[in-house]
């Protein structure tokens, strides 16, 4: 019972904050709305027996990535922004059609899928979300993925430093 209440609140807040993210015009407020979305999704992760992923979501996504966004926004200042849909002009109707079509398709699939138990109450799970389980999974099954991901991070970090250096040089700095 409690789980259903928490789920309803978290799902509703995730979707409402998500709507705010795509409709607010000032970047700062949209970023604060994103924080709300991320924290709601973290609560949903906790309900799905994923405590480690939820903690990493808060630490990495809400605690580092969004802080980076806020820094850049503070640096850039609030710039004049275009209206929603201004970019699309005549194509706006098609976009809405596509989105509504996808939504209907999604509902149809979910209502008719044959996967057993997907519309019923969930079963108990074993230990899938603990740090130990995730660590074992990484090391035993997905070690290549692990190494490739750290390489990707390294490349991104080096790339960012290079971008910054080049920008400083082009402005006449050292």
């Amino acid at each position, binding site marked *: 019972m409690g789980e259903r209440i928490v789920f309803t609140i978290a799902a509703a807040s995730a979707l409402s904050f998500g709507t705010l993210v795509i409709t607010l015009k000032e970047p700062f407020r949209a970023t604060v709305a994103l924080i709300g979305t991320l924290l709601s999704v973290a609560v949903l992760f906790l309900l799905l027996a994923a*405590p480690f992923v939820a*903690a990493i979501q*808060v630490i990495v996504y809400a605690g580092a990535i969004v802080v980076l966004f*806020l*820094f850049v926004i*503070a640096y850039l200042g609030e710039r004049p922004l275009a209206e929603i849909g201004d970019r699309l002009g005549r194509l706006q109707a098609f976009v809405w059609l596509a989105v509504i079509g996808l939504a209907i398709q999604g509902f149809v699939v979910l209502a008719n899928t044959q996967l057993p138990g997907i519309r019923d109450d969930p079963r108990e799970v074993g230990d899938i979300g*603990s*740090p130990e389980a995730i660590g074992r999974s990484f090391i035993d099954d997905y070690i290549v993925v692990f190494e490739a991901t750290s390489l990707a991070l390294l490349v991104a970090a080096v790339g960012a430093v290079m971008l910054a250096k080049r920008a400083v040089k082009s402005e006449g700095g050292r």
Partner: protein
Amino acid sequence: MDERFLVVVIKAALVVFVVITAFAYTLLWERKLIGRFQARYGPNRAGPIGYLQPLADVVKLIFKEDFVPKGANRLLFQIAPMISVFAAVAAIAVIPWGDGFEIFGYNVEGVGTDIEIGVLFLFALSGLGFYGLILGGWASGNKYSLLGAARTAAQLVSYEVAMGLSVIGVVMMAQSLSLVDIVHAQADTAWYILFQPLGFLIFVVAAVAETNRAPFDMPEAESELVAGYHTEYGGLKFAMFFLAEYINMIIISALGATLFLGGFSGPFLPGFVWLALKVAVLLFFFIWLRATLPRLRYDRLMKLGWKVLLPLATLNLVVTAIVVALGFAN
């Protein structure tokens, strides 16, 4: 079921009350200690030896005018201190202060809740705490606040990396992220400060930077940025930021005591007395640093975090990993 919940609520209220009292007297103790370091008495007028001083301070702050500056974003300006306080106080839930005991027939655990990812929970909360100061700095509508907030946030993010790495060494030795497990592991072997001296050193330096204490308090240096992100805050909201900062200090000292000094374990005396003693030792160290060292310039501060602490922490991690993997750690 209802009785169990009631026990938890009472326990939570008591623990929070104890921590807030500890905050009040840490304030007083700090002012008196710094006074003594500077060859003068600290405050000693409010009550004998000044022990009613915190009460006087709080009463003064509550009665000050509660204003919102004109160019400020009203909602965020008022929420920001609450976020800081929330992040600081919520951390109390996972610090273990004793083994479980039985009272009136109910089993009471010695910790708010022993979650399996206790250490990660604390890092998540400190990440959320950043928002208190970033939003506060932005919402003040004041360039000094924004600049102070940006500098503070950059400093906190940088030192959190080093702190996280230094903690992983302890986690590897205890084989668990749960704080209660770490305390029990230290009770079985020895305090981890003996096994991880470099880790402890890095943790302490990073902790001083994380709590914005001298010598790392450039973002709130009076001569530089007025008061950084809390320039525009007065009265009760300022009190909330202040509360958040000192409770952060207490929590980080408690975390250091739990991870490196054995937490609540110790002979003869009850658990929470040992924890209080260890926290007091670390707090004394914080205060001593503030009274003694000059402030670090901001670029040197960042260089220290990235070019010194991070490589040292990584080295510590690699050596610990090799030792644990080869089986020498038992």
